[in-house]
């Protein structure tokens, strides 16, 4: 063992350059592989820590075949549990709108409040550190807070039993402390209050008297814990039948059929509600990239070892003649590979620790790596073992199988029959690299296209802030803002960033086909909006008079899908009741969703008292003074809330964050892939130049110029890269075209993209090859010829 080790170290040292190439290549690729594995592990671990994980389902409301809501009405689960034995338990979860927590006259902002049923801790495995699970919510004024928040608010005091005031003026008593919800949980809150708290908005003159009766508000997530072995498909259809029946019994007058879907909690993170594996595709993509990068580095090793096998051949032959047996030789060669691998793994560990902070920033995650942690160790060990097998076995078998006399012959003629295998591996390497480069270019171009795409409105110089309690004081707010000479316009739109997050079915209009269950997106606004956002009115005009509930505007797509011949002046009913509103005008289509989707039908209402966001357009100058004006107004109307504003120009970054992250990661990975490929190429060309020293000498004596020689040495590799391009281009086209199909608005992949990728690859190849080639070509031929 030590004998072999000694020989192995000596071999690594004497082949300095090749050892360094291999060590760097393997270290970098294993590092990338481990970083990707951490990412994949994190993605796959989402919501898997619940003991009941397999039996927890999230109920989605199926609007149409392709529109799902992740929310349901609140009463549904109460009735469902009473009716269906398959349902063991349920928990409703809602976001609780609250700004801050006050304790000892200090305000703490930036909390996520969840309103949940008391079954929460029975169904989910969120850990309770203090408090009695049986009576967590003994009344509606109980609150459970996370460990971190407890520390922040109470410091060293014991939080249990303490009273804290929430911004909406209710005092809550701390009845439990929970461990911070894990980062890989789709359900994450800092504080939990009882679901009944939401009842406070009911009562009085509203149609619905209690939240548990309100079938009209689809704002609540419903999680069901099913009995083991229960069929979730049948539960979802039973839910649909139940709600349809109940709604008819209630005499709502709607002949609507309700449909629901049950999505396993474990699939929540990686699948969208319609069952598309959107997140999983990225997991696959990155896993494949990890494998490809490892493969590229392993190919480097195999190529360099086999290329240089003729040099080793003599040693092996002498060992055989001296009585070495195949298993022993095999072990020796494997140990050599292992030694090299361990050297690179030492670098890998350092690199992973070093790069992890940057990687977390790049990927927007908080992953950690601890080599002594079992799962990290597993990732690390598995990767190492794979690499050892990939790199060690083939060269060991090849070298071990040399026949002694043949090996002697081999070293003298320098011929090598494995040259085609090696060339094929180089082609494979570059095929992978080129595909990754193309991927980076195309995704980058697509994002660029999305960013520059005309959305149908102008988002420049627009600042948005939530109205909160400015609602109902619009005219005063607007007039105050317009006093600032840098404000050129003000309006209100129901959602931030011109998105529309609300939709409705059951709209009827004259001539509507009974089977048409068109879903409309709905937004609320003020009259100034079309002008402020530069959205042209293509037909008709704004509603007359003051904003009221009697008029709406449609977008062109709505008119098209409704098949309205004279849309302006048409009377439509939003709720299939007898309250008709009049369409006064048609707005030109604009994009109000991610560009993955086409423009959908839209109804815009104009109400006097609409909630939503204040849109302020500046002249492009004095932005700070506009923000100061806004802040002053904010303090006047919303003294209890943090002032947050948003530039619409930043919208792109936020909306396409995951796409941007994917693009960034992909570009890093393709740089790594091409770097490792070039490293291998560098090794190969060095070796070629070494073996061809004499030939180069002869050619030079016969009149070859330096450029002749450089051409000769580079041509071979350029041809290989050329072949790799021919293979990579169609594969990349196929892959990227499929990926772009996720976008309703997409670029087409045209030849300049391929030309660019080709040029980048060729340039890098030339750069890699030429250094060694020039070195070989300028060597003194007199010395070269003497080399025997």
């Amino acid at each position, binding site marked *: 063992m030590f004998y072999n080790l000694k020989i192995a170290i000596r071999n690594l040292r004497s082949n300095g350059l090749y050892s360094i190439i291999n060590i760097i290549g393997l270290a970098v690729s294993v590092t990338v592989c481990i970083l990707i594995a951490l990412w994949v592990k994190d993605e796959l671990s989402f919501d898997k820590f619940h003991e009941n994980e397999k039996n927890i389902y999230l109920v989605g409301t199926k609007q149409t075949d392709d529109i799902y809501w992740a929310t349901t009405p609140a009463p549904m689960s109460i009735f469902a549990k009473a009716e269906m034995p398959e349902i063991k338990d349920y928990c409703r979860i809602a976001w609780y709108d609250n700004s801050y927590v006050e304790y000892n006259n200090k305000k703490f902002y930036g909390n996520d409040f969840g309103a949940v049923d008391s079954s929460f801790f029975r169904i989910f495995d969120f850990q309770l550190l203090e408090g009695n699970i049986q009576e967590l919510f003994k009344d509606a004024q109980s609150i459970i807070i996370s460990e971190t928040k407890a520390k922040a608010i109470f410091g060293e005091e014991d939080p249990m039993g303490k009273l804290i005031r929430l911004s909406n003026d209710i005092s809550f008593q701390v009845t439990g402390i929970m461990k911070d919800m894990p980062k890989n949980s789709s359900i994450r809150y800092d504080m939990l209050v009882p679901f009944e708290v939401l009842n406070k908005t009911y009562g009085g003159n509203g149609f619905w008297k209690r939240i548990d009766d309100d079938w009209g508000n689809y704002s609540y997530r419903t999680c069901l814990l099913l009995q083991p072995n229960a069929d979730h498909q049948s539960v979802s259809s039973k839910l649909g039948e139940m709600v349809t029946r109940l709604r008819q019994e209630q005499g709502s007058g709607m002949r609507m059929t309700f449909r629901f879907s049950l999505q396993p909690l474990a699939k929540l993170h990686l699948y969208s509600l319609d069952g598309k594996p959107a997140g999983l595709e990225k997991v696959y993509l990155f896993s494949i990239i990890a494998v490809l990068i490892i493969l590229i580095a392993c190919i480097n090793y195999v190529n360099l070892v086999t290329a240089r096998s003729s040099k080793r051949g003599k040693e092996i032959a002498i060992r055989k003649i001296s009585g070495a047996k195949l298993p022993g030789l095999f072990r020796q060669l494997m140990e050599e590979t292992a030694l090299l691998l361990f050297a690179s793994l030492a670098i890998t560990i350092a690199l992973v620790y070093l790069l992890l902070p940057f990687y977390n920033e790049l990927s927007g995650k908080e992953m950690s790596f601890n080599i002594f942690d079992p799962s990290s160790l597993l990732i690390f060990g598995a990767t190492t073992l794979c690499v050892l097998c990939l790199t060690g076995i083939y060269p060991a078998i090849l070298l071990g199988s040399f026949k002694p006399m043949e090996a002697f012959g081999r070293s003298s003629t320098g011929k090598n029959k494995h040259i085609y295998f090696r060339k094929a591996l180089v082609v494979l390497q570059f095929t992978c690299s080129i595909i990754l480069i193309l991927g980076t270019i195309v995704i980058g171009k697509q994002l660029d296209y999305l960013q520059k795409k005309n959305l149908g409105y102008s988002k420049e110089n627009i600042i948005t802030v939530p109205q909160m309690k400015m609602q109902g004081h619009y005219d005063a707010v607007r007039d105050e803002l317009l006093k600032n000479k840098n404000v050129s316009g003000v309006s209100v739109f129901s959602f931030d960033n011109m998105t529309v997050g609300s939709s409705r079915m059951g709209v009827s209009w004259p001539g509507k086909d009974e089977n048409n269950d068109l879903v409309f997106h709905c937004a609320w606004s003020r009259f100034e909006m079309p002008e402020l956002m530069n959205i042209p009115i293509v037909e008709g005009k704004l509603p007359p008079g003051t904003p009221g509930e009697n008029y709406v505007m449609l977008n062109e797509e709505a008119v098209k899908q409704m098949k309205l011949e004279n849309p302006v002046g048409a009377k439509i009913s939003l709720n299939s009741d007898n309250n008709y509103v009049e369409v006064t005008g048609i707005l030109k289509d604009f994009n109000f969703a991610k560009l993955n989707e086409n423009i959908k039908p839209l109804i815009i209402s104009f109400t006097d008292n609409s909630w939503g966001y204040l849109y302020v357009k500046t002249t492009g100058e004095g932005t700070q003074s506009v923000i100061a004006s806004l802040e002053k107004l904010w303090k006047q109307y919303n003294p209890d809330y943090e002032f947050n504003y948003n530039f619409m120009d930043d919208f792109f970054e936020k909306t396409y964050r995951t796409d941007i992250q994917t693009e960034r990661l992909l570009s890093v990975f393709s740089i790594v892939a091409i770097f490792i490929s070039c490293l291998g190429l560098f090794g190969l060309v060095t070796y070629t130049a070494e073996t061809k020293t004499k030939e180069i000498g002869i050619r030079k004596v*016969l009149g070859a110029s330096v450029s002749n020689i450089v051409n000769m040495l580079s041509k071979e590799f350029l041809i290989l890269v050329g072949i790799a391009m021919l293979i990579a281009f169609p594969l990349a086209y196929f892959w990227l075209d499929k990926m772009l199909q996720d976008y309703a608005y997409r670029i087409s992949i045209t030849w300049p993209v391929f030309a660019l990728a080709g040029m980048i690859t060729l340039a890098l190849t030339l750069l890699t090859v030429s250094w060694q080639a020039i070195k070989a070509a300028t060597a003194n031929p007199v010395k070269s010829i003497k080399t025997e």
Partner: protein
Amino acid sequence: MIKITDLEKIYRTEEVETVALNKMCMEVKEHEFVAIMGPSGCGKSTLLNILGMLDDPTSGSFVFNGAEVSKYNENKRSDLRKANIGFVFQSFNLIDELTVFENVELPLVYNNIKPAERKVMVEAALEGVQMMHRRNHFPSQLSGGQQQRVAVARAVVNNPKLILADEPTGNLDSKNGVEVMQLLTSLNEKGTTIIMVTHSEHDSRYAHRIIHMLDGKTVTENFLKELVYAAQ
């Protein structure tokens, strides 16, 4: 054709300075066949490399066809070499991956001669050394004598004015050696100047004149004889 005066070539390493050529003077006229003889390490090969413009002298003058070439740069020397000089080596120096035809063709390729023309010239050269029938073989498929004949064909294919031969028969048996020497002689008779480094007394008899070298200088034959006599 060639005139060298006070030519010096000094190899320096960190520790030693080796004088390979020590103020050497020599002249070779056109159509001459000159043999250079001397013991190992006397500077024969260094001289041949400088004459072949594969190496540059440390100092001194080297006039080739009336032009001072000792200060020429790599490119100019390469051009001059391509056009005027053919080489024959002891170890043949054929390229294993190329056929006989392609090996001979090589100097023409680097002289930018058109393929059709090249074919004619290569075939003529191969005819000259009687290797036409082996034109599609690889060097490893030939005997040593045959390989050297191919090397000679390659040396003469672009009709150089000067052939530099470095122990052309060193790796050959006597029969093959004679064949190669006859080949060189006939080339010389057709007008090619030949400078040949050799250890073989027999081969040197083919030359018009013999230059003896010792310790980087030319010496007379008598001087050598005296040396030998003194040693005895």
